[in-house]
């Protein structure tokens, strides 16, 4: 049976394009322009879902975006709002939250024990014993509502956009359109954002006069140079009018998140019709007047055969006209303005069959229409700091605050006839445009150095809008019976009263305890009824109770839209193509992708210790420092002394923050009189650049130093191993590499493999004789391959980050951030010789002076008694026989060189002396013993090899 009506004057369906779709396994037809809801109702499918807790059959209540009953599964897309989503040809749509089927739902048994599931039921029932929580979780998960997530669903393409309009208008009804038109006529750049699929708001389901006005406004706004975004929602307003707009109508992206910095935000969302609370108000067949009018006028769907209409306003009256026009028998009009009331909607489980009135009469009907008033969706105003105030005469909330860059218009601001509302909206548009100009001037004035301000500061445009009248309206929230308040959470007014009696009688507590207003409708339908029921329970007025605060998002937003496109650059060295072609296993280190190893890190260690290895260390932070005052800067950043560093020398240093905590370490070399090259840790490169600039710009602006980051400007290659000198000397001919001419901790510049202007220095994180080459990055790959070709007979092989980490641990070299943490002060490192308190000043000096007198944890080398045991990093070190923590393992590896487990760890002073026996708690709970070593270096503590 079809409920499709003959053509209606304002219908939005295209009858020349029929569509077919599957619903709950069966084939149905629709027209282009149908929502899933209108298509289902046109096919006489009146039950669309089962309610969350009691699994009661539910039909459409509002048949729009906010319908609390219309959540369906569309293919692999769960929780689709069927009152909003348009039907597409071939769609597969299924009901959610039903088992085994929509018509026969086993869980409806919950309804039979309904009182058992009162407010706080889950909190009270599933709290003890705690050991049962995992079981409870599994059981409750089965009863959780919602659709099915398919983990194999391909990722949709989501996008982001940044926009800088003068005015954003939230809401494309008559007021929003009129405001946009008048703002644009004054030259403002305007974005008009409409939640629904087309502009028009309530004019879309109105009468002939409404349709004429809609055509006129639509024509004007389309010619006004306004950017119109339909099927898009302003979901949030944040500081300085940073507005988040979700665009669901983008031609390519599934959704696009627009971050718009509006100078002025106009809030014109209209009003949302409020359901009435009475027994049976969730039976299929009970609908709001707006739903009925949308179905008839926009979708040409006959919502029932015999109706009772409960009306308290003109919209309810208009619904009667619409119903009668399309042949629905209006069996009874119950006029709330005459003191009439409805009490119970009766019928079987699945459908309404009659309505009981307050005068005791019972009227047969398959449709009950209610028109009891409005909720003002003040969300965006709330987010701007407004606290709406209740007006008893018109039975709704109004904005109360004057916010200079957020203006409300339309139904949210008041009533009146069309002329009054349009005049208010036009005045709002003008005010918005003028204030946007003034805001732009103010912002520009603060940054006049960047761009000079044009003209004098405009006078601040005052709000001289004529305020709108407020129509009187009966206060209709709950009848004399109890019924559903929150449809999507299945919360009854009895639950609210019971919760208030239990002491949850503040509106914010009541909300959290009963979950009323916390479902997918997010309070759009149920907030005011919740407040009204609570006010009644407390014997107070609605204003005294107040409302919950509406927070972002205005409408639920997908995680995909929030994630959007990720703008995260990945950094690679100029040698990356070679690494990829030669079997490197990549590792992500900060923003860098670099080789972790080339197959066998232990073999890479052995080859480097035996022959020669090369590693790409390009991510090493590099700062080019120039100017006469570089030594002052170095003295300030490092804890040791730098005034006497000769040209051609390199020195190691530790940097601390002002709290004495180790910030970074590295070497800096003096290339010429006024030029130095500083290296930082790979992860600290950005921080140290900022740190150096901080001191130069704020505390010592008189120092003449220029800092240039050159991390990516040079490709850095460390050549390490006993045969490294032999290898490097084959590529370098203008620098004497001999041990006497180019000593440990020295720097030279020269030509490497024909590439001039390279720097090389002798340092060694691996503990081997090493030459670190810094090559202009365009030639990095050339030098890398030249090293491999020229060193073939020397056994040269590349090694990755893992081999370097093993070798540095064998040498006992710490890594800042691995072996130190946010509390590790420099004296813990065992390098107090590098902390020079006789310098006048340096970063962190006072803290370090005090720290030197304290007993701090120490970083020590540790070896396990059983050489095969490698404790996991971060394993705790405890006092034997207790759980008292004495320290922890900060680094651990199996050493291929020593063929045993080696560690670094931080321990309390009492456990730091060499030879102390330690107890380590392994990750599986076993306790093993270990010993503190005499030197931090497990291997070659005298440093013979690296000085070779």
């Amino acid at each position, binding site marked *: 049976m079809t409920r499709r009506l003959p053509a209606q004057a304002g219908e939005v369906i295209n009858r020349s394009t029929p569509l077919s779709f599957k619903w709950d396994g069966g084939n149905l037809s629709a027209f282009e322009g149908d929502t899933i809801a209108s298509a289902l109702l046109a096919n006489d499918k009146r039950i669309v879902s089962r309610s969350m807790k009691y699994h009661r059959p539910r039909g459409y209540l509002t048949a729009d975006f906010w319908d609390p009953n219309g959540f369906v599964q569309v293919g692999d897309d769960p929780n689709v709002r069927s009152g909003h989503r348009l039907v597409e040809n071939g769609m597969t749509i299924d009901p959610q939250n039903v088992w085994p089927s929509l018509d026969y739902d086993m869980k409806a048994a919950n309804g039979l024990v309904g009182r058992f599931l009162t407010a706080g039921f889950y909190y009270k029932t599933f709290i003890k014993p705690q050991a049962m929580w995992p079981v409870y979780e599994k059981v409750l998960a089965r009863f959780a509502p919602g659709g099915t997530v398919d983990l194999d669903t391909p990722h949709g393409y989501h996008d982001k956009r940044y926009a800088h309009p003068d005015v954003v208008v939230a809401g494309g009804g008559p007021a929003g359109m009129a405001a946009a038109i008048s703002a644009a006529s004054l030259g403002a750049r305007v974005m008009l954002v409409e939640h629904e699929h087309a502009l028009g708001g309530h004019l879309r389901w109105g009468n002939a006069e409404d349709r004429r006005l809609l055509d006129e406004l639509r024509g004007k706004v389309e010619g006004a140079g306004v950017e119109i975004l339909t099927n898009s929602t302003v979901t949030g307003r944040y*500081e300085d009018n940073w507005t988040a707009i979700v665009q669901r109508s983008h031609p390519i992206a599934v959704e696009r998140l627009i971050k718009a910095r509006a100078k002025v935000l106009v809030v014109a969302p209209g009003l949302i019709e409020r359901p009435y609370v009475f027994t049976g108000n969730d039976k299929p067949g009970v609908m709001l007047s707006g739903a009925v009018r949308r179905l008839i006028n926009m979708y040409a769907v006959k919502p029932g055969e015999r109706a009772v209409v409960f009306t308290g306003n003109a919209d309810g009256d208009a619904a009667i006209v619409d119903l009668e026009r399309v042949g629905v028998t209006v069996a009874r009009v119950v006029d709330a303005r005459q003191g009439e009331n409805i009490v119970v909607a009766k019928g079987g489980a699945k459908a309404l069959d009659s309505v009981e009135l307050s005068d005791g009469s019972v009227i047969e009907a398959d449709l009950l229409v209610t028109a009891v008033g409005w909720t003002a969706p003040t969300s965006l105003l709330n987010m701007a700091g407004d606290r709406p105030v209740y007006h008893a005469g018109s039975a709704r909330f109004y904005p109360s605050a004057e916010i200079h860059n957020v203006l409300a218009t339309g139904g949210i601001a008041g009533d009146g006839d069309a002329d009054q509302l349009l005049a208010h909206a036009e005045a709002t548009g003008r005010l918005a445009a003028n204030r946007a100009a003034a805001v732009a001037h103010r912002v520009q004035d603060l940054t006049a*150095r960047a761009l000079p301000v044009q003209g004098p500061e405009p006078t601040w445009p005052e709000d001289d809008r004529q305020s709108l009248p407020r129509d009187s309206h009966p206060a209709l929230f709950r009848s004399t019976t109890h019924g559903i308040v929150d449809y999507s959470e299945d919360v009854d007014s009895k639950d609210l009263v019971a919760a208030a009696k239990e002491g949850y009688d503040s509106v914010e507590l009541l909300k959290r305890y009963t979950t009323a207003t916390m479902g997918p409708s997010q309070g759009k339908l149920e907030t005011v009824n919740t407040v009204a029921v609570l006010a009644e329970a407390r014997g107070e007025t609605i204003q005294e109770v107040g409302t919950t605060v509406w927070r972002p998002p205005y409408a639920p937003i997908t995680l995909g839209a929030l994630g959007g496109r990720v703008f995260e650059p990945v950094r690679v060295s100029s040698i990356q193509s070679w690494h990829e072609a030669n079997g490197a296993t990549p590792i992500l280190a900060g923003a860098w992708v670099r080789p972790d190893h080339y197959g066998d890190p232990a073999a890479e260690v052995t080859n480097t210790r035996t022959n020669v290895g090369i590693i790409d260390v390009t991510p090493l932070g590099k700062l080019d420092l120039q100017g006469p005052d570089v030594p002052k800067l170095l003295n300030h950043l490092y804890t040791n002394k730098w005034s006497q560093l000769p040209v051609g020398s390199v020195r190691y240093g530790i940097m601390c*923050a002002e709290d004495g905590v180790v*910030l970074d370490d590295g070497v800096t070399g003096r290339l010429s009189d006024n030029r130095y090259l500083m290296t930082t840790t790979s992860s600290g490169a950005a921080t140290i650049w900022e740190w150096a600039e901080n001191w130069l710009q704020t505390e010592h602006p008189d120092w003449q130093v220029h800092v240039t980051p050159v991390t990516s400007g040079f490709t850095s290659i460390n050549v390490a191993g006993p045969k490294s000198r032999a290898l490097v000397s084959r590529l370098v001919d203008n620098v004497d590499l001999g041990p006497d001419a180019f000593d440990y901790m020295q720097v030279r510049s020269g030509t490497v493999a024909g590439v001039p202007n390279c720097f090389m220095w002798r340092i060694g994180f691996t503990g081997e004789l090493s030459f670190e080459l810094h090559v202009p990055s365009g030639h990095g790959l050339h030098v890398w391959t030249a090293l491999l070709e020229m060193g073939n007979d020397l056994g040269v092989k590349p090694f990755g980050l893992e081999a370097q980490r093993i070798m540095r641990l064998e040498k006992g070299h710490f890594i800042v951030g691995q072996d130190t943490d946010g509390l590790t002060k420099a004296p813990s490192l065992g390098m107090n010789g590098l902390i020079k308190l006789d310098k006048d000043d340096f970063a962190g000096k006072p803290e370090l002076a005090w720290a030197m007198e304290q007993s701090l944890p120490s970083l020590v080398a540790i070896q396990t008694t059983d050489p095969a045991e490698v404790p996991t990093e971060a394993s705790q070190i405890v006092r034997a026989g207790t759980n008292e923590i004495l320290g922890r393992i900060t680094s651990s590896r199996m050493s291929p060189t020593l063929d045993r487990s080696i560690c670094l760890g931080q321990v309390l002073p009492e456990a730091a002396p060499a030879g102390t026996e330690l107890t380590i708690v392994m990750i599986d709970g076993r306790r093993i013993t270990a010993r503190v070593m005499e030197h931090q270096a497990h291997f070659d503590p005298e440093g013979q090899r690296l000085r070779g």
Partner: protein
Amino acid sequence: MLLVPCPNCGPRNSADLRYFGESHERPNPASASPHEWRSYLYLEDNPADWLKESWFCRSGCRRYFTLERHTGTNEFRSPPMPGNKVGGKA
């Protein structure tokens, strides 16, 4: 998100800058008591009033500067000035 008036780049989203909180004078390291030094490191007045704060325009001009902001309204007042030492928070 705050719109921060950078003196060189113009209005910028606060995510483009680094915020250091209240601007502090760095005490003389030679004579500061532990209390003075740690007040500089960790303590802020946090008034509901105009407040001088330090910013670093990380994604733009890379200059440090201070701005006066009203903590109640988030309004910025004075043109930016060269920054005071921001202290401790590298």
